[in-house]
């Protein structure tokens, strides 16, 4: 029988970050997976990043995680979204080479001496005196551990639908987890059922790409990782096609055969990732929908039809695909499908992603009701950090809503729970102006360094860039520049609209050190031009911090407060807010109720 500090169940995008973080912090980690072939597998979209998601990747990277480095090393196209807008919403995105991505991550994990492998199917969670003791595999083998991170994605009682065809599966071709699902539920966690879908894959050779609008990558491409200095690989283009009336008509004709629409599937799907059936039926006035043809790798056959997820019968899918202009001869390698799966209500977790019912048990990723690789990766990293700290009886590491999108993510999940799959958007962050891709390292790398996540290499690189920023700020405060016929201090000039810091550098008026143009300029520009806005957000942050500083004892009894409605008491008891600030964010809890709670907490503290 083997014994580890931390066992991570699942080697998907959450699991690998969890294992990596715990291992880098010096713990003895085992990854339990069905097969090493599916390490860091992307079951759906062959892409990393996008709006808000790109921010999460930068943050994972700033804390020494894998995702940013992996995608930089293996991607086939890079794009910076929202480039024409302000720096707070610039979002990097990349098309992934799925196979190479998985291989890169596997190589990194296998090279890490603190990581071992348990190949097989996880069965039962073992608990001793209420705390995590280990894991029993389905074949009976037992492994001991002090902390357990479960990142099983869509595998818990997973069920795949293709038309009337139903097959238990976690992902296509992979068996679902029943025993583990039951083991988790035996602890009494609140749980629900969600669904998601994926589109058909087409064979590259059956498509004439010259018939579509080409979408090339950026030139020059913008990397994800702070450690990536240049990207030199050639980029591959994507293509765009639009649906037509004929496509819509076909969908409507066969709608009764769609499990998403005929009631065959229970479970709630993500509204921001609508299936083709959703699009056609719910938005009938829309003349055409945009579909992207995305290669799943540089030299693989599969073309991913982005925006075309559906679960109609396979034969119907083929007809619909071939109704797309330019795809009349397309060959379908694999039909699209819908998958239903169990998830655990994340209100069962505290903000370190540890379950309250079972100390030492951490949950991360889609099992918590999120969707998206980046959301999974961010949670995995946070869970891994805290599992590692738990093992050493160190206090948990919690990220605030003002610190990172990861903080927003965890707080949203644990305070509000999930009624449908959760995806990150920039609009979820009330301090969006402070959470930018150019300052992710300033926000997080020092914290990572404190706990051993950040290598010397990365730290040196960071200190370098931070010092450079300080020197640049000093130059700006000392220089006067000419704008038109006026001479004014550079700091004041940069506040004016229409004055571009790059231009001043080009004109030779500002002697700045620019090593990484995008983030070096962005940090400076934001600081001066949007000073007023940043200051207001800082004030709001100060308010938030004050509320967050008022802790609610973990054994506080909400039912001991008369004047609270029964629903409020139920909500509060299930969420167990850790601070007054968190209590304020619980849906349905009024400010007056929180005032009462605060009064009682204060009274209790006085004794």
């Amino acid at each position: 029988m083997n014994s580890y500090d931390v066992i991570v169940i699942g080697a998907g995008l959450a699991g690998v970050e969890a294992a990596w973080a715990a291992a880098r912090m010096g713990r003895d980690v085992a990854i339990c997976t069905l097969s090493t072939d599916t390490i860091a597998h992307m079951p759906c979209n062959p892409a990393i990043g996008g709006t808000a998601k790109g921010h999460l990747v930068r943050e994972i990277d700033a804390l020494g995680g894998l995702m940013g480095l992996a995608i930089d090393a293996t991607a086939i196209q890079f794009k910076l979204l929202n480039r024409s807008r302000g720096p707070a919403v610039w979002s990097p995105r990349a098309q992934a080479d799925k196979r190479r991505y998985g291989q890169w991550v596997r190589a990194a994990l296998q090279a890490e001496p603190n990581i071992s492998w348990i190949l097989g199917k996880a069965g039962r969670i073992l608990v001793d005196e209420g705390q995590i003791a280990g894991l029993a595999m389905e074949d009976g083998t037992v492994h001991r551990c002090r902390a357990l991170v479960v990142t099983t994605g869509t595998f818990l009682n997973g069920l795949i639908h293709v038309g009337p065809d139903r097959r238990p599966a976690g992902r296509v071709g992979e068996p679902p987890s029943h025993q583990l699902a039951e083991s988790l539920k035996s602890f009494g966690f609140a749980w629900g059922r969600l669904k998601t879908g994926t589109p058909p894959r087409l064979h590259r050779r059956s498509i004439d790409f010259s018939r579509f609008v080409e979408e090339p990558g950026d030139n020059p491409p913008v990397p994800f990782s702070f450690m990536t200095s240049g990207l030199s690989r050639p980029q591959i283009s994507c293509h765009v096609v639009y649906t037509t009336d004929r496509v819509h008509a076909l969908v409507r004709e066969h709608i009764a055969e769609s499990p998403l629409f005929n009631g065959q599937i229970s479970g709630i799907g993500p509204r921001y990732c609508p299936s083709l059936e959703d699009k056609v039926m719910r938005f009938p006035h829309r003349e055409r929908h945009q579909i992207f043809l995305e290669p799943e790798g540089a030299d693989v056959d599969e073309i991913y039809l982005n925006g075309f997820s559906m679960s109609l019968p396979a034969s119907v899918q083929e007809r619909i695909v071939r109704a797309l202009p330019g795809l009349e001869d397309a060959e379908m390698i694999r039909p699209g499908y819908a998958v239903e799966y169990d998830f655990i209500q994340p209100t069962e977790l505290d903000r370190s992603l540890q379950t309250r019912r079972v100390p030492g048990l951490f949950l991360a990723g889609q099992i918590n009701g999120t969707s998206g690789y980046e959301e999974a990766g961010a949670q995995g990293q946070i869970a891994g950090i805290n599992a590692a700290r738990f093992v050493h009886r160190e206090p948990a590491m919690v990220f605030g809503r003002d610190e990172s999108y990861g903080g927003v993510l965890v707080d949203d999940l644990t305070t509000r729970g999930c009624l449908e799959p959760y995806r990150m958007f920039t609009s979820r962050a009330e301090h969006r102006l402070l959470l930018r891709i150019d300052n992710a390292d300033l926000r997080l790398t020092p914290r990572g360094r404190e706990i051993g996540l950040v290598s010397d290499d990365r730290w040196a690189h960071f200190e370098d860039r931070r010092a450079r920023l300080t020197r640049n700020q000093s130059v700006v405060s000392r220089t006067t520049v000419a704008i038109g016929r006026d001479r004014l201090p550079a700091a004041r000039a940069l506040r004016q609209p229409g004055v571009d810091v790059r231009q001043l550098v080009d004109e030779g008026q500002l002697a700045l050190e620019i090593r990484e143009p995008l983030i070096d300029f962005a940090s400076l520009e934001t600081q001066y031009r949007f000073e007023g806005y940043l200051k207001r957000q800082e004030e709001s942050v100060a308010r938030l911090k004050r509320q967050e500083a008022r802790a609610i004892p973990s054994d506080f009894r909400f039912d001991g407060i008369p004047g609270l409605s029964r629903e409020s008491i139920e909500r509060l008891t299930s969420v167990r807010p850790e601070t007054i600030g968190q209590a304020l964010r619980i849906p349905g809890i009024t400010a007056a109720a929180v005032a009462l709670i605060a009064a009682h907490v204060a009274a209790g503290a006085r004794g």
Partner: protein
Amino acid sequence: MFSTDDTIVAIATPPGRGGIGVVRLSGPDAAHIARQLTHRDTLEPRHATLTYIFSPIGIAPEAPSAKIDQSVVTRFEAPHSYTGEDVVEISAHGSPVVLQAIVAAAIAAGARLANPGEFTFRAYLHGRIDLVQAEAVAELIDAVTPLQARVAFDHLEGTLTGRLRGIDAALLDLVARLEASLDFPEEGYHFITPAEAGEALASVQASIDELLADAAHGRMIREGLTAAIVGRPNVGKSSLFNRLAGAARAIVTDVPGTTRDLLTERVEVCGVPFTFVDTAGVRRTAGDAIEEEGIARARQAEGAADVVIVVLDRSRPLTDDDRALIEDTRARRVLVASKIDLPAAWNVAEIGALGVSSLTDEGIADLRAALVPAAGAGELRDRPAVANIRHAALLEQARAAIVRARASAAAGVPEECVLADLHEARARFDEVTGARPQDEVLRTIFERFCIGK
């Protein structure tokens, strides 16, 4: 912070004598205490029960009779009551002694004397009313004039909330579109153009301006206006004051400089509470020390007044002092030609004065009607007003945020900065109503637009 697990009691009707006084109980023991006070086993809810009120201590130690009053008692079961808790209302005879005795009896039976506003606080806590309505209850009780009462009632009915919701809905639509354009840049959707955004913002700002104009109007309704009556000695100020105030307050003699003190009286004029101030005769050059002090105070009152009533004697020629007064009081004044019952020494039309006679009452009604407009308050519109300083302040902040957003948008500042200001405006609205809806923006986006891959 109020405690909410006990039963509170208080006299609900204003102090002083009246036919009926009401004692109100609210809390978990209200029914139990009421049964003890009435010596009845049961009190049917929502049923006015005529019953005796008993007290263990009697009405006073010297009158140790157990029965203190015959009253009508009504019980309201939670949550269908004013506070949302169990409530008992005892309508007793309006004698202060009786009412105090009932309260004392209730306290002896286990109730606690309520703090000011505590019943309303409980009503808010139990969700019976929202913040604006809670404040309106106070205003209704404080209302002096019928118009004030109506404005307060409007608040209670929720029309301010309704109007705000309309503005907020427009703002939410704009915010949702802007957020969508940031979070879904690749959808091929046209969410909103800069021109459309500018128009929407202008419209929102105009709506807030309207509400704020009502705020100024509302403040006036709530706090009232001051009208200072100024003029040379013995032009008839005090007589006019008496006429306007409706009682013979000031001392009226023939000797100039008689009114040494500032007399004030508060009356309603066209629905607005007015405080009239009668000043000493302002001879721009003083005589003795007492008169000087009077003059100084008069100047002060004049400066602080919302409207100045300049009284000029029509039966005597206009002097330099008169003309000086006319000059000095350019804005917010009404020129009054007094003593028009006597032969005219000059024409009122020359200086645009209003002719009045305190003797015959001629012109007094016209003068009253001219006062409110002269104070710059414009027409009294019969619309819901923002009569509360808290609301006005929050709306000012919201407006400032909208103005900033407009300027930023016009200057080409990135959308996320414009949105920061718009979110702030919405947060101020939420603070008025006490509501904090979550997830609204995303919900709005997905209901309107088909997005996502």
